[in-house]
């Protein structure tokens, strides 16, 4: 069978050497919010961007969506320049602390965004119904957004991002302000998106969840990308081996420690309960940067 010539699949997200300066009115010196950040996300990947407050996560996402113009560097979505409108055909965005028109009901809000994406008639009605069920807002769909709680806003925002079945979903702190159960539901939703082959680019402060859902992670600090790569590679510590025991008695642990002590060169570093390793990495990397400065 004749196969069409393989063209290189464009990455879902291509951010190259992005620099973003903000003019500050008081100081002459502009504020550098993002400093030479490069990110490449291939289709189907789930990428988590983590970093302390004010490190430039949201600004990077906004530049990717063309909401702010890069001072230098380039952003592209599926090979299309972010500053062009057609790059946004295949992307859904949930901004941080989303807010919507308070005079519209939840259902009307989704219809509005659907129409903006060119969905019409019965298709739109079905899609809206489906999404309202997905984010568990069917009961509140006829209430005005003005009366929604924070978590409800977050969920309607998520539904709005998914309205046109985008191939790339950008989520800025999707679980902020959502209760633990809701936050777990959002995590499951991201799993579902991943199964469907949808690329997800998210940032969050909940490192445990980032570790659970993401296959690639970038750590950004004061606008600079300080670590980036596959999650498994990042958190593996090459010269260490982890033994995780279940129902081990203290005597057994002591025995193992003694055994390790008999071998020259080997060393038991710690015993205790396993911790979220991404969290450990995050703290270590940001503290390292802090002490360098």
């Amino acid at each position, binding site marked *: 069978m004749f196969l069409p010539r393989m063209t290189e699949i464009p990455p879902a997200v291509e951010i190259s050497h992005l620099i973003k300066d903000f003019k500050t009115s008081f100081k002459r010196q502009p504020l550098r919010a993002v400093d030479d950040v490069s990110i490449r996300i291939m*289709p*189907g990947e789930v990428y988590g961007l983590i970093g302390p407050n004010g490190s430039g996560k949201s600004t990077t996402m*906004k530049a990717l*969506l*063309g*909401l*702010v*113009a890069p001072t230098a560097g380039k952003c592209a979505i599926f090979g299309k320049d972010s500053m062009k*409108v*057609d790059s*946004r*055909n*295949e*992307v*859904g*965005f949930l*901004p941080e*602390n*989303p*807010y*919507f*028109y*308070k*005079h*519209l009901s939840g259902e009307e809000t989704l219809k*509005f*965004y659907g*129409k*903006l*994406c*060119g*969905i*019409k008639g019965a*298709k739109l009605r079905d*899609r809206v119904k489906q999404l309202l069920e997905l984010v568990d807002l069917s009961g509140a769909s006829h209430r005005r957004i003005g009366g929604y709680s924070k978590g409800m806003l977050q969920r309607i*925002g998520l539904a*709005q991002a998914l309205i*046109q*079945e*985008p*191939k790339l979903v*950008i989520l800025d702190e999707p679980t902020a302000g959502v209760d633990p159960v809701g936050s777990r539901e959002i995590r499951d939703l991201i799993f579902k998106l991943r199964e*469907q*082959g*949808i690329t997800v680019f998210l940032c969050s402060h909940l490192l445990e969840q980032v570790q659970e859902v993401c296959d690639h992670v970038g750590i950004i600090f004061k606008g600079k990308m300080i670590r980036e790569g596959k999650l498994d590679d990042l958190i593996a510590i090459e010269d260490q081996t982890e033994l995780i025991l279940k129902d081990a008695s203290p005597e057994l642990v002591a025995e193992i420690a003694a055994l390790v002590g008999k071998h020259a060169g080997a060393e038991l570093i710690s015993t205790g309960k396993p911790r979220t390793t991404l969290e450990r990495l995050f703290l270590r990397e940001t503290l390292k940067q802090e002490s360098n400065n």
Partner: protein
Amino acid sequence: MNPVSTIKAIPGHVSRTSVIARHAFTQLVRMKVFYFLAFFAVILIASNFFNLPQHEGPESAGVNILRSIKSWSLGAMTLFSVVLSIVATALLLPKDVEDRTLYTILAKPVPRLDYLAGKLLGVLLLVFVSLALMDILMVGILQLRTNMVLTDQMAMAEARGWPAADIALLKAEILAQGPTASLQGAVFSVFLRSSIIASMALLISTFSSSTLFTTIISFLIYFIGHFQADARAAYLSGEAGTSDGILARGVTLLVSLVLPDFQLFNVIDSVIEGQVMPLFIVGKLTLIGLFYAIFYILASWFIFAEKEF
């Protein structure tokens, strides 16, 4: 590998603009702007009793009432349409920026020009619908009143034994004060004027930082626009013959390009007096309205395209 999405069709500029326009219209309607129609009805009914002092004979009394109705209603239409177009336009854009709803809209494949045009059209739709409702009210009352005046005056003329030709003249005179096509032209001119003002307010709101600033500057420009022609004429006559003449002409041309001359809309007053508004004037005002609306919206786009949020 990626599932081919089938539910969306890339919409054209027109359909997307109309989605945003209808949304802006709904938003304004749900802000309960139509309550002012009740005020309008009160003004309209009151205008029936505002009798201007009469110097002429009793035969002009009826005509004066008709004028008074037109004058009050067109005045109220002007006031409502100007206030509505400035305040609504000044409100919509900063609200979207402040509430960060703009992020979610511009993150969809929505060109910024479509967004601006949609907002403006939403406001204009609102102004148009309000003017149409006010127009219906005004025409209704005016028609009733014209019929009353007509029967009164005809009875009076016949009682006095006027010749048929004079009676016909009187009848024509009264009908000219009633709901004529020129009156509709005047209402349309009110709409055209408010579209110029709304698009100007849109331009200001793209670079201003607050609704208050936009509102104040827009009203200022509206008032300046009434003196623009006089100022221009005075300036040009003072400069005539000097070497700066060409420069002055250039400056005034530039000013009139940016600042509309609202004295052009004084034809509305002559319609109130019962004069006929020629069709070419309506055409001229339409062209002027279109010119400024397009000019301002392109200028707004120019600024808004560079804006960051």
